[in-house]
């Protein structure tokens, strides 16, 4: 299972509450019941209050990632679990990176940080990357070593890649490549499926080759023995 990491770069609870509000204003209902881990690079906020703020926003905090001594203590008091980064204990997708996968040729182009003020972008050390702005034609976003969550739409002519799964909560109209470093277990989930191309671990399908029954529907794309399956999700 993959957990979303929420990086909190504030220690002031009022600022945190405001950022969460802004986030929700942009993507109402997006977080519904999503379990998250907190990462606290900026220091230790009042964890009990943070948990309450996030709970009010329908996010459930399950633990703290890579907590220092003080944070671990506070987490225990707030009833939260402790976890360490996948880099330390989980298998990294790099372990089985073949040379010829899309990731190899793509990300050198204008890779977009797409990090807006207030994005809960979880940057380098988090395995999950959250994008809350529309991904526009000509832009490319790559979640290296993890999952990509897109709260809006991916335009035709845009490209999103992840070494892990890709979730698109709006329409997917551009290209989506999951398992970009060769992870055949990676999947693409999308609420409205109108892509130019989808691929998992290098197996791809272009729009023309897709069954029209799945167009504009909510789907899951996965790999079954080198067969790219596009399945309705209702």
């Amino acid at each position, binding site marked *: 299972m993959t957990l979303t990491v929420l990086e909190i770069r504030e220690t002031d609870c009022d600022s945190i509450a405001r950022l969460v509000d802004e986030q929700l204003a942009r993507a109402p209902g997006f977080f519904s019941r999503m379990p998250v881990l907190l990462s606290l690079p900026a220091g230790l906020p009042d964890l009990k209050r943070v948990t309450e703020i996030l709970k009010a926003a329908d996010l459930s905090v399950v633990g703290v990632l890579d907590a220092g001594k003080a944070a671990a203590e506070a987490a225990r008091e707030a009833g939260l679990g402790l976890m360490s980064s996948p880099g330390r204990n989980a298998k990294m997708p790099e372990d089985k990176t073949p040379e010829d996968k899309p990731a190899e040729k793509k990300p050198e182009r204008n890779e977009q940080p797409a990090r807006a*003020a207030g994005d809960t972008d979880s940057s380098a050390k988090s395995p999950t990357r959250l994008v809350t702005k529309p991904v526009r034609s000509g832009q490319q976003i790559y979640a290296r070593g993890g999952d990509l969550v897109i709260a809006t739409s991916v335009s035709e002519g845009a490209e999103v890649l992840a070494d892990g799964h890709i979730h698109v909560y709006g329409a997917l109209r551009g290209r989506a490549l999951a398992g970009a470093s060769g992870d055949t277990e990676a999947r693409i989930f999308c609420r409205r499926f109108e892509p130019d191309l989808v691929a998992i671990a290098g197996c791809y399908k272009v729009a023309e080759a897709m069954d029209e029954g799945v167009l504009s529907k909510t789907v899951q794309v996965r790999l079954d023995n080198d067969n790219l399956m596009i399945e309705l999700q209702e």
Partner: protein
Amino acid sequence: MTKIIVVTSGKGGVGKTTTSASFAAGLAMRGHKTVVIDFDVGLRNLDLIMGCERRVVFDFVNVINGEANLKQALIRDKRIENLYILAASQTRDKDALNREGVERTLDKLSEDFDYIICDSPAGIETGALMAMYYADEALVVTNPEVSSVRDSDRVLGMLSSKTKRAIEGVTPIKEHLVVTRYAPSRVGKGEMLSLEDVGDILAIPLLGVVPESETVLNASNSGMPVVLENNADAGGAYIDMVARFLGEDRPMRFIEATKKGFFNRLMGR
């Protein structure tokens, strides 16, 4: 506070200059001191549409190069109080604009004007970037066809990543969708995208819809911003647009869209 508004599109010939002229004129008619700047260096046609081409002595590039001051280069509109034009140069190439020079000019204009309208050149290169770089708000001009919408989408990506506001991480540029050359009858026949289709793809608030209209061409041939053609349909659309921009509620006119999905049409079904 002065507001800098870029009128941009990506694709050429969609109605940026027409919109810049009428939007600026409309704001001035509502009593706001407004200047419209032609960033289309080398092509220069804003002055034609504004009917002041024979009064251009100094232009934007002269100002940037320090060859003239703003007072010498600003052309006052003869029909509308509060409206000024800063023309582009016809004799320089687009590299004549530089960021420092543009910033200096905009800063200086901000001392006097309520609104600065920047008429962007087509494309996504330096000229277009220069026109949008310092913007506070953007009118994204789009025709109801696939290639124009795609280019607008691309420009929206630039607005949210390559502009000063984006780079400094302050409040993002406020984006407004302006759909021009809209012909509801052709939408009905499936020859054009509907308003829903366009709005669905670009996902930014719609500020106005300007119908396809002969009066636009006639007006620009006679050097009149079409907004002055009060009774005409396109003129009315620009008047409404300015009113909405200033916070008034005006129902959209000239729209009778149908519901056919964009994707279906793309797939040829």
